[in-house]
C-alpha cells in the first residue's frame, strides 16, 4: 500500500495517491465514512443472503438456503390460489346447462372469456384466431354447420371430434368417387357442374343437366339429400348455399369428388375439463353462427 500521508500536494495541501502521469499526481480523496460503512454492511448482508436463499451453484444443483425458497414453488402457490378464486365460478359453469349459461349475462361473460382463451390455445391453429377458418377448416362465425350448430351439437363435436378415432367421434366422409373408380372422369365433371347449378353458380357450356341430376341421385343423394340440402347426421354439407369448405369452382369440385374429403378434428374430451369444453361450446355458439 502506498503511504498516502508521505506525499503531500503542496498546492492543495492534500495527500496524493502516489500515482503520477506526466508529472500530474492524483489527489487522495477518500470516500465518506458513511459510504464505506454502507458498503461493508452490504457485504455482510450478502452473506446472510447466501445462507437463507438459494445461492451457490453445485455440480448438479445449488445450495437451497435455510428459508427453502424457490420461485417455482411461488408460481405453483399463485396458480393454486388463482384456481381457488376461479373455483366457484368454474363450478357454476360445470353445473349450469348450456342454454342457461348463454342466458345468464355473468356466466355468458365468463364462458366467453374462458372460451376465447382456450380457443386461442387449442383451436386457432386450424380455425384461425377469429375462428374464420380456411380451406378445409370451417368458419365458425357463419351459419353453415357440417355437424349441426345448436349448443349441444357444437359441444358434442368439440368433445368427441370428427374422424378423431374417439369411440363417439363423428364419422362419415366424402367418398373418393374417381379414385375408387365409381365414376368416370367425364361423369365427375358433369356432376360437378350439376352441383354448381344447385346454388345458382354458372355451368359449363353444353353440359348435360339431366345426366348430372341422374348421377347425383344415384351417388350423392344418399348423404347430401335429393335436393342437395345436406345432412348434419352424416356431416354432409348443404350444397345449395353460398358457403364452400373446399371451394366452389369446377376444378375444386372435381378434386373433391375424385379424391374424397375426410378432414379431421381431434376429440377434446380428456384434454380439456368438462367445464372448459362447455365454455368453448358457448363461446363458439356466441360467435354468431349458432342456431
Amino acid at each position, binding site marked *: 500500500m502506498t503511504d498516502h500521508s508521505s506525499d503531500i500536494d*503542496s*498546492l*492543495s*495541501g492534500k495527500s496524493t495517491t502516489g500515482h503520477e502521469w506526466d508529472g500530474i499526481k492524483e489527489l487522495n480523496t477518500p470516500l465518506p465514512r458513511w459510504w464505506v460503512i454502507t458498503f461493508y454492511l452490504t457485504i455482510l448482508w450478502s452473506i446472510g443472503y447466501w445462507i437463507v436463499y438459494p445461492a451457490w451453484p453445485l455440480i448438479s444443483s445449488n445450495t437451497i438456503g435455510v428459508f427453502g425458497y424457490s420461485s417455482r414453488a411461488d408460481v405453483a402457490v399463485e396458480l393454486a390460489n388463482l384456481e381457488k378464486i376461479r373455483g366457484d365460478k368454474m363450478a357454476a359453469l360445470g353445473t349450469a346447462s348450456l342454454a342457461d349459461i*348463454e*342466458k*345468464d*349475462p355473468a356466466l*355468458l*361473460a365468463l364462458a*366467453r372469456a374462458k372460451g376465447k382463451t382456450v380457443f386461442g390455445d387449442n383451436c386457432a391453429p386450424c380455425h*384461425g*384466431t*377469429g*375462428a*374464420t377458418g380456411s380451406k378445409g377448416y370451417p*368458419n365458425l*362465425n*357463419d*351459419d*353453415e354447420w357440417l355437424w349441426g350448430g345448436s349448443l349441444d351439437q357444437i359441444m358434442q363435436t368439440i368433445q368427441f371430434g370428427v374422424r378423431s378415432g374417439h369411440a363417439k367421434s363423428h364419422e362419415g366422409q366424402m367418398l373418393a368417387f374417381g379414385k375408387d373408380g365409381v365414376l368416370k372422369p367425364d361423369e365427375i365433371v358433369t356432376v360437378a357442374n350439376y352441383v354448381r347449378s344447385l346454388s345458382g353458380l354458372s355451368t359449363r357450356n353444353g353440359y348435360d343437366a339431366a345426366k348430372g341430376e341422374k348421377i347425383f341421385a344415384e351417388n350423392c343423394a344418399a348423404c347430401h339429400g335429393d335436393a342437395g340440402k345436406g345432412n348434419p347426421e352424416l356431416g354432409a354439407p*348443404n350444397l345449395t*348455399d*353460398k*358457403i364452400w369448405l373446399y371451394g366452389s369452382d369446377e376444378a375444386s369440385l372435381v378434386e373433391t369428388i375424385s379424391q374424397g374429403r375426410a378432414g379431421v378434428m381431434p376429440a377434446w374430451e380428456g384434454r380439456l375439463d368438462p367445464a372448459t369444453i362447455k365454455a368453448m361450446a358457448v363461446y363458439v355458439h*356466441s*360467435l*354468431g*353462427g349458432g342456431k
Partner: protein
Amino acid sequence: MNKTVNPNELKPADDTGPLYAARKKVYPQSVSGTFRRIKWTLMAICLGVYYFLPFVRWNRGLGAPSQAVLIDLPNSRFYFFFIELWPQEVYYFTGLLIVAAVALFLMNSVGGRIWCGYLCPQTVWTDLFYAVERLVEGDRRERMKKDKSSDPLKLERISEIVLKHSIWLMIAWWTGGAWVLYFTDAPTLVKELVTFQAPMIAYIWIGILTATTYVLAGFMREQVCTYMCPWPRIQAALTDEWALNVTYRYDRGEKRTSVKKAAELRALGQQVGDCVDCYQCVAVCPTGIDIRNGPQLECIQCGLCIDACDNVMAKIGRPKRLIGYDNDINIHRRQEGKAPIYRIVRPRTIVYSAIIVAIGGFMTYTLATRSLLDVNVLHDRNPIAVKLSDGSIRNAYTVRLLNKSGYDRVIAIDANGPANATIHVIGVDSVTPDRPMIVIPRDSTSELRLLVTAPAENNPEKSIPVRFLVTDIGLGEVASATDNFVSP
C-alpha cells in the same frame, strides 16, 4: 514551481455552516378582537363540516348508499348529495379544481392571502393546536419561560407536557378518523372501529393522518407555509398594487417610540409616529415576523396583528388600524393628503369572476343535462364481416350499455343504416325478435354481443354507417352510438 500561490487563499469561502437556518420557535400570544372572532368562527365552521359531514344522511332509495358525501372506491362511485358521478365523469373534478384555483386568485386580488390566514387546513389545525398549548401551558411568556428553564423536570411540568400531547394526539386521531369516514358508510365504520373489526386499511389511514396532523400542526407549523407551500410564491407573483394586504400604515409617521418620549419629542417639534414600538404585533404573530417590515413571504395575513395593535391604540387613545388591510397606493395618497381609494372592481377581479361564473355555469349546465343512459359500440375486428349461407352479410359488435339512474330500465335496441337489416343479441330471446328488449339493472353497465345481418344485394357498399339507438321503453330516453357495417 508553485511559490506564488498560498493554498489557503484558494479555498472557497467558509462552507462549514448549516445549509438551513435553524428554526426559531414561535410563541404566539393570545389576542382578542374582530379578526380573532372571525378566525374562531371560521375554524368552528370548517372543522364542524369536516368532522360531521360523513354522518349526514341522504336517501337514494333502497340498495344505494344513504351517505350524503361518499367516495365509494370499490364500486367506483362518488356521491355528493343529489349528484352521483362515475369514474368517466372525473372531468367534473377538473372543472371544480379550475374554479377553486381561480377563486383563490380572486380572493388574492381582493384581500391578499385570505385562504392562508383563515381557511387553509394548515392554519386551522395549527391555530387549534396553539389554543390547546395555551390552555395547558399558559400564554406566551409562561411558555417561553418553561421552555428556557434548565431546572430538572417536576411532576407538574411533566404532566403538562403529557396532557398537551395527549390532547393533540386525540385531535389528530379524530382528524384521521373523520377522513376514512368519507370512504365508507360512516356509522357502520364507527361501530367497526370501536369494536376493532374495521378493515386494516382504515386503521392504517387513520394512523397516517394522525401522524401528519400531529407533526404538521404540532411541530412544523409556520415552516409548512414558509418552506413547503408553493402558494406564497405564486401569490406574490399574482398580486397587484390594488390588492388589500395586511399592512403597517407607515404614513402614520415614524419614528416609533413610547408615549412619554413621543410627547417630549413632539414638544421639541420633532417627527414622531403613532407606533409605540410595543412589539404586540410581533408577539401575537403565528409566524413570528414583524409586520412593520412590510409585506413578507412568511406573512399568512391572519389579521391577528391588527387586533393586537387596535387593542394598544385604543388604550393609548390613538386611532385604530395602524395595521390594517390596505395597500401602498393609499399610504402614498394619505401622505400626499389625498383620500384613500379602494378598487375592488377592476379588470383583474372582473376577469377572475367571469371565469368562475363561466366554468361554474358550464359545469352546472352539463351536470343538469347529462344523460343517465349511454351506449358504446365496438365493432368486431376478427372477423370484420361474415358471409352467411344465404349470401347475406353479418357484422358483430360489442355493445356496452350504461344505466346511471337509480332504477332498472327496459331498453330496446335499433340499428339504422344497412337496408333490410335484422339484429340479434346473443343470449336474449326477446318477445320482439327484430327489436331486442333488454333489462339493464340500475347503476350498472351491461355488455352485450350484438349481431347485425343484412342481405348483400341490398347493401352493395363496402362500408355503411350504422347508428345504434338505445331507447328506454318507459321513459322514452334515447342514447345512440355510431359505427360501420362492413361487407367482406
